[in-house]
């Protein structure tokens, strides 16, 4: 259990009156606006504090992160070698569903990068544990929103994970540089980054919503693992969705959030999606972010009504 749960996170109290310098009456109105901005800034500041705490907390686990990153290279290498064998069997400059060997290799490497930036690590388990152990009671009293609080911790975790994983991943990319395709245009790369940001939010909100099941169930891990299995294949983790039969791909893209949890940014990076398809893709992704956010809020509100604060 992270230490912050034991003592409760240290937060600046935003309700504390702000001491402002004495000022001429004539400028009061302008200063009122200024004070409003200051208050808004203070409200933000407590979340900055959370991020700081989150970074410190996650740093204790840096060796776990490193171990996980290194272990994850084993199946990644296996998949890359498997594809290489398949391409070798098809003859030189063969393509699989428009993917050349270099594109296929790049696909998996970019997946690894996006994964580092956006994957939910322990957050869902921690949220579920908070609910079960009654730790969320303190958030019902404090002027801090649990969802934003968890989002800050999630982002902090990603930042730490990135610093730990950056070196090994960069090494692998350098090692495979002749198979690694750089982004074709700067604009495309910016769109990729935008999509990655949306992916992170979507990942987080969906996991948060799943974790809300802990209000109703003793054990949520089975449900989480079943969802993981679905995500693993339908989000493009195992293979680019382009190699699926068209109706299946079409159904996934239009009816489920899974492709927007990983596939979309990588496809944008490789320019497998462009023009109108790209715009609709990003809009769909944004829509799923919104839907998952609303679901998360709704589940929390329902859950709180049921909440019995066991041990809290």
């Amino acid at each position, binding site marked *: 259990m992270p230490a912050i749960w034991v003592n409760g996170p240290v937060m600046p109290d935003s309700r504390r009156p702000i001491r402002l310098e004495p000022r001429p009456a004539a400028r009061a109105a302008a200063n009122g606006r200024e004070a409003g901005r200051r208050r808004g800034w203070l409200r933000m500041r407590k979340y900055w504090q959370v991020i700081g705490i989150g970074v410190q907390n996650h740093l204790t686990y840096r060796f776990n992160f490193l171990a996980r990153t290194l272990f994850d290279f084993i199946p990644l290498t296996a998949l890359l070698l498997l594809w290489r064998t*398949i391409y070798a069997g098809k003859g030189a400059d063969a393509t699989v569903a428009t993917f050349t060997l270099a594109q296929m290799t790049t696909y998996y490497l970019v997946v690894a990068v996006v994964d580092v930036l956006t994957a939910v690590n322990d957050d869902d388990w921690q949220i579920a544990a908070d609910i079960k152990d009654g730790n969320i009671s303190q958030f019902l009293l404090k002027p801090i929103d649990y969802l934003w609080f968890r989002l800050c911790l999630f982002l902090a975790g990603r930042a730490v994970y990135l610093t730990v994983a950056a070196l090994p991943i960069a090494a692998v990319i350098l090692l495979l540089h002749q198979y690694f395709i750089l982004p074709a245009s700067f604009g495309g790369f910016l769109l990729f980054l935008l999509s990655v940001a949306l992916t992170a939010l979507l990942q987080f909100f969906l996991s948060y919503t799943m974790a809300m099941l802990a209000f109703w169930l003793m*054990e949520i891990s089975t449900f989480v693992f079943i969802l993981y299995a679905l995500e693993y294949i339908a989000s493009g983790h195992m293979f680019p969705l382009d190699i699926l039969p068209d109706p299946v791909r079409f159904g996934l893209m239009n009816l489920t959030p899974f492709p927007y949890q990983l596939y979309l940014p990588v496809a944008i990076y490789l320019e497998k999606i462009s023009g109108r398809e790209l715009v609709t893709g990003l809009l769909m992704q944004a829509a799923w972010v919104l839907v998952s956010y609303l679901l998360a809020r709704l589940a929390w509100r329902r859950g709180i009504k049921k909440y019995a604060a066991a041990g809290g």
Partner: protein
Amino acid sequence: MDARQCSVGNRGRRYLVIYAALLKNSVIREMMFKGNFLLWIVVEVAWFAMQLGFISVLYLHTEAIGTWTKWQVVLLIGASHFIQQMYQTFFLVNCLNLSELVRSGKLDFLLMLPVNTRFLLSLRQLDLGGLVNAAFAVAVMVYAAGKLELALTWSRLLVFLGLCGLGVGIHYCLMFTLATVSFWTVRAQGIVHGYYNLFNIARMPDEAFARGSVFRSVFTFVLPVLLISNVPVRLLTERLTPASVWLLAGMTLICALGSEWVWRLSVRRYTSASS
């Protein structure tokens, strides 16, 4: 000599009685949470289905991986799932629990009991869901065998089962060795998590990796997971070289001896916690 044989027989019988008691406890424990028991089976089925889905999508775009055809790979995935589930039934939970026992100092109680500690540690708890999932794996294997029109004989099936048994042994020895790392550091969970990646390798057809490449050599001669399901499936599909059977058996023996050595080394380091 008579007396010694007698004592070996007695000891064997005593361990069987102990195992029966452990088995009974496990059944009772599982039946306390029936819903959960069933849901964990669904989880495993979902992951198994995902693996099969991956292969069927892959074979939409290729005829073969090396010389492995689609149904041969399905058979391979079935066999690897079977071996993994058998391993899971008997050993996995116990390997996962080891670090917690060390951390909390509860290992004291097990060390004091007049039974071989490693026996108790390794077999204390059975995961009966694994048997159900192993049955699913068998169903997939039977289907794939039908598609491949394999010529099966009882003796071949028996040898196949024996080879699978060796595979279970390798999984157990490797993971038990990894779990004993918890005697050195309390943060062993990450390492145990890492073992799941080795299950992934065990599912791969060996020819996906070039012969003599670093990857293939490491996972054949150092962490021999590539042998675990490839050798038994090669037996069924009649593409087996006798050398690889010896290799599998030899590697199992090395893993067993290695893990026993590490275990003895580790348990010497055990300083009980909080007592």
